[in-house]
């Protein structure tokens, strides 16, 4: 490896400079405020977890984990998401009497870089987990809360695509008969390879009606009417259950008043085998990657030895910032520049303004080398210089 320059950071690691920090703070405040209003309680978990527990239970691929060893030789991971640590915590301590838990988080997660830039390896996520509630009302609540929290940040144009893995599984099982064959098709969808999916379906020894049902799945996206189309494709018990769940979900979302943000997308598969029911992704204009995603993951808690249904969402703050656009590079910090003889007056003024909640910088004139460059950073400046007791 070549010698590092002193300014270098590990691949994908970023600094947060003041303007960005202020923006992050504003977003964090807007979202966490809304989340708290819905009765969710914030928690923190450790940055490091065991690879064997949280690392393997996480939905994040193995090659994206940062791994290290502790002094006993156990493999540790930097938490790649917050869902798995919260599942660990809920399963081992909080989820006791079977009543639903509503937890929220605001934390940095870590995912190792595979490729070129444009992808941070550490980023902030804000999200919620609703554990122990298997009803459609819980799915609807999580989606509506996500929309409300995003609206609070000032984000205008965004869309939530909703899918149902139970529907896809039921259709594949009904047409193909076994899990192995279903898995091949699921992988094509997961890899977003529709060309491969179509070619594979055409080559299968199936009736043309069954082939048509599989091909039709690729078109099952759009508005609410898509749900009715989806129902026509399947009549097994599991399939009908999934469609009914989607109908109920839409009924709930209508009452929450968020229906115009929703699109149905039954070929949405954001993970190979993690989600177990309704799942969703949220997109904004001018950002090439989803802002966040979520869904129902009823199998995860069982990995921590306590079975419980659960659903949640996670929003990536870095992408949300991109969606909101550049903030005005302006702050509200007031600056008082003083000379020694008027220090007492300067301190008094600063204290007064700080008590009122203003942000005030107190700067000795002798500490400045370039006065224009210095004052440019602040919204306005008061000079307390010289002995004539007059502001310049």
């Amino acid at each position, binding site marked *: 490896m070549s010698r590092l320059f002193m300014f270098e950071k590990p691949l994908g690691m970023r600094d947060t400079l003041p303007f960005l920090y202020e923006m992050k703070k504003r977003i964090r405040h807007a979202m966490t405020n809304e989340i708290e209003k819905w009765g969710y309680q914030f928690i923190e978990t450790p940055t490091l977890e065991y690879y064997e527990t949280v690392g393997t239970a996480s939905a994040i691929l193995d090659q994206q984990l940062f791994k290290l060893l502790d002094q006993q030789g156990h493999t540790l991971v930097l938490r790649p998401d917050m869902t798995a640590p919260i599942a660990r915590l809920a399963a081992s301590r909080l989820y006791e009497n079977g009543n639903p838990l509503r937890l929220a988080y605001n934390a940095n997660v870590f995912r190792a870089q595979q490729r070129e830039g444009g992808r941070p390896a550490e980023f902030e996520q804000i999200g919620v987990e609703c554990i122990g509630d298997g009803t459609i009302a819980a799915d609807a609540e999580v989606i509506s809360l996500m929309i409300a929290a995003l609206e609070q940040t000032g984000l205008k144009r965004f869309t939530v*695509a909703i899918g149902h893995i139970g529907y896809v599984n039921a259709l594949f099982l009904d047409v193909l008969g076994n899990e192995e064959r279903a898995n091949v098709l699921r992988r094509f969808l997961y890899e*977003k*390879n*529709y*060309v491969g999916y179509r070619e594979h379906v055409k080559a299968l020894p199936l009736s043309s009606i069954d082939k048509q049902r599989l091909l039709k799945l690729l078109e099952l*996206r759009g508005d609410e009417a898509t749900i009715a189309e989806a129902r026509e494709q399947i009549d097994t018990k599991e399939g009908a259950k999934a469609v009914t769940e989607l109908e109920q979900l839409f009924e709930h979302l209508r009452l929450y008043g968020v229906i115009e943000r929703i699109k149905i997308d039954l070929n949405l598969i954001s993970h190979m085998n993690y989600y177990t029911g309704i799942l969703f992704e949220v*997109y904004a204009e001018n950002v*090439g*990657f*989803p802002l966040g995603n979520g869904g129902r993951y009823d199998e995860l808690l069982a990995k921590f030895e306590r079975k419980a249904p659960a659903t949640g969402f996670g929003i990536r703050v870095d992408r949300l910032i991109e969606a909101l656009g550049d903030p005005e590079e302006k702050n509200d910090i007031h600056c008082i520049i003083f000379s020694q003889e008027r220090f007492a007056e300067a301190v008094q003024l600063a204290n007064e303004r700080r008590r009122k909640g203003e942000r005030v910088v107190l700067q000795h004139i002798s500490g400045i080398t370039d006065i224009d460059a210095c004052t440019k950073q602040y919204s306005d400046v008061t000079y307390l210089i010289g002995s004539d007791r007059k502001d310049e």
Partner: protein
Amino acid sequence: MITIAMPKGRIFEEAVELLRKAGYRLPPEFEESRKLIIDVSEEEMRFILAKPMDVVTYVEHGVADLGIAGKDVMLEEERDVYEILDLKISKCHLAVAGLPNGKVNGVAPRVATKYPNVASSYFREQGEQVEIIKLNGSIELAPLIGLADRIVDIVSTGRTLKENGLVELERIAEITSRLIVNPVSYRMKDAKIDEIIERLSLVIGDE
């Protein structure tokens, strides 16, 4: 406005022809222009002209909504984009080639290629461990001057192989150009994109 990343070179003209067949009114000087960004305002489209290998990158990052990329690039880059349509243009295939009766180095067989990921996974699937040497062009040189025993490259007519005294040994995959879509655009601009997909499907036909 829809932004489409087009591959410069071999695929470009066929792709333009296909778009014209689908009824898109692209200006006549489209092919001659040396501009990298061409706006076609009457179709509400913007075209960006990129290296074929880079088209997938532009689309994955969402700076282009759609792109036209060879399957060879898709296999090599494994980007997170929708591969929506087989455009059935620029047909060729990926193959292993080498000298006729050429001996493979038993200790460390070497393969030169522009597609290190494709080559590596192909040989692993065949149960053979090889060493990959990445080249950027004129791959056929490698076995001729002893850099590698075999090469992995795209073959369309086989003429280049023949003229350099090489033979095709194994066929890896059939290659055509694909229409690819950014996952966010696929949802945010679905009406417009579905229309493009439909118009293109009509002119491609179903074999």
